[in-house]
């Protein structure tokens, strides 16, 4: 009894679509069984909100008078990449403002970086542009300074090369000193463990073999609408998997795009990670069309069945040894304590589960109200397991 995306969209248009979140579907399957849920539910919504360093925005500034072919540019003193035409620039989330003390006084605070510029723009705050050029016959201007806002640049798109990691490491510290990482502060001698995934709500863990998510999938991105455009960088599906097909190591990723103008700083928030750097927390929600019973079985995955690797961030991660200290489930992580090398270790998330829920609920509302239609992917993302490679 398979459904098509077109049939589901028809129900969405008529305001009749049955939509549940990836959390709600767990109990529903428990009560009604896979077969009935596949028949009655149309869409499962997912959500995640966490720091995603591989993020940034393309901005076309519009032309100056006289014209300038920008060679170097800064937004609020944060350097932007300018090696593309005259007034196209790319501002990366982890780029730091000039003259930031970085880690000179350790651990550095990293108060303002590219992520902050992006949040400022989305919050409709003014941002100072400074640009320099060498001057040509067709672009004679050598210097341009002005205040810009999101509304007066020509285009501004979020374009993130790697987001929404399918599963992630649990970070611990085996050394005898505090370490400051992109996974937060890690106390010595297994003092704490930080994890960073929404687990059972996480988009790519609910479609572990990429049976529905592909190029062109319309998604919730940063509070607005975006699209999956490509597998993300480091997309890797050739990984160990549990019985339910979910990867037990960091695996697939997606590259996403969306108009910054529709976004909201609540779901696109600048982060400063002590001793590490600046970044951007991104909210992503992906709708999974219920095409068949298989889709339901995958989307009903629960935290007890999702496994993450525990990795030491004092030596093994920085040195790239590949050593894994052990495996834990998201249910154990969310209980607040895990056992690593015989020691009880308190856990904390870095990914906001409350905001992930909010995103899955928001997407559910959009679809129910007929405002958000699903897309047929132009092509599915590569997956070694699905393709039998």
């Amino acid at each position, binding site marked *: 009894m398979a459904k098509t995306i077109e049939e589901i969209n028809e129900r969405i248009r008529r305001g009749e679509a049955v939509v549940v979140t990836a959390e709600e579907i767990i109990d529903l399957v428990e009560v009604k069984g896979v077969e009935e849920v596949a028949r009655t539910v149309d869409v499962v919504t997912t959500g995640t909100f966490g720091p995603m360093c591989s993020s940034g925005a393309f901005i076309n500034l519009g032309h100056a008078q006289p014209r300038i072919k920008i060679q170097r540019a800064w937004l609020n003193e944060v350097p932007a990449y300018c090696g593309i035409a005259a007034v196209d620039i790319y501002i990366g989330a982890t780029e730091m403002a000039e003259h930031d003390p970085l880690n000179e006084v350790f651990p550095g*605070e990293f108060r303002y970086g590219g992520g902050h510029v992006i949040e400022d723009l989305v919050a409709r705050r003014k941002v100072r542009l400074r640009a320099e050029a060498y001057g040509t016959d067709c672009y004679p201007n050598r210097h341009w300074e002005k205040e810009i806002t999101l509304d007066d640049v020509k285009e501004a798109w979020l374009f993130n090369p790697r987001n929404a990691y399918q599963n992630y490491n649990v970070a611990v510290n085996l050394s005898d000193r505090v370490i400051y990482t992109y996974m*937060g*502060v890690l106390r010595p001698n297994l003092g704490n463990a930080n994890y960073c995934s929404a687990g059972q709500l996480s988009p790519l863990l609910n479609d572990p073999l990429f049976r529905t998510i592909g190029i062109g999938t319309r998604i919730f991105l940063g509070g607005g609408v975006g699209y999956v455009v490509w597998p993300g960088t480091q997309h890797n599906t050739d990984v160990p998997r549990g019985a339910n097909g979910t990867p037990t190591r960091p695996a697939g990723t997606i590259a996403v795009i969306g108009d910054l103008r529709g976004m909201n700083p609540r779901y696109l928030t600048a*982060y400063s990670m002590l001793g590490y750097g600046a970044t951007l*927390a991104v909210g992503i929600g992906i709708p999974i069309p219920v095409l068949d019973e298989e889709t339901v079985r995958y989307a009903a995955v629960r935290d007890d069945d999702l496994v993450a690797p525990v990795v030491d961030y004092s030596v093994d991660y920085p040195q790239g040894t590949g050593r894994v200290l052990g495996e834990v489930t998201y249910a154990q992580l969310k209980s607040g304590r895990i056992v690593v090398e015989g020691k009880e270790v*308190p856990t*904390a*998330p870095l990914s*906001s*589960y409350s905001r992930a829920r909010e995103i899955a609920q928001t997407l559910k509302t959009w679809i129910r109200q007929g405002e958000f239609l699903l897309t047929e992917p132009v092509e599915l993302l590569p997956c070694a397991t699905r393709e039998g490679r």
Partner: protein
Amino acid sequence: MVRHKIVLHFPHEQVDKPIVSKLVRDYGLDFNILKASITPREEGLLVLEVTGEEEDYLRGMEYLRSCGVSIQPLSQDVRRNEDRCTHCGACLAVCPTDALSLDRESWEVRFSEEECVACELCVRVCPPRAMEIHY
């Protein structure tokens, strides 16, 4: 008589020494321990309410400083900017009290001003900088 609430930071090597008990014996001060813990940097952290004569209090504080203990009045306040908190949980690992805790139903991080000793450890750790110092 004066009564002060203060936060003491003990350097690593002083953590085990009975410095505070000398306040009673040699300076005639009374104290109440409101909170005691070891911070992630392995420093001692003690929140005291001290009562005694003004002069004894000042001499007592002088003595603590000579032992390398840093003293902070508890008059300043750490508050949370609720609009900026994303409930990420990064602060949970560093808060030495239960002022920041995770509600496992709503998955929101709760902040309790009553339990906060204004040690400021969370301030720089909070990624969106939601924890603010108010004077």
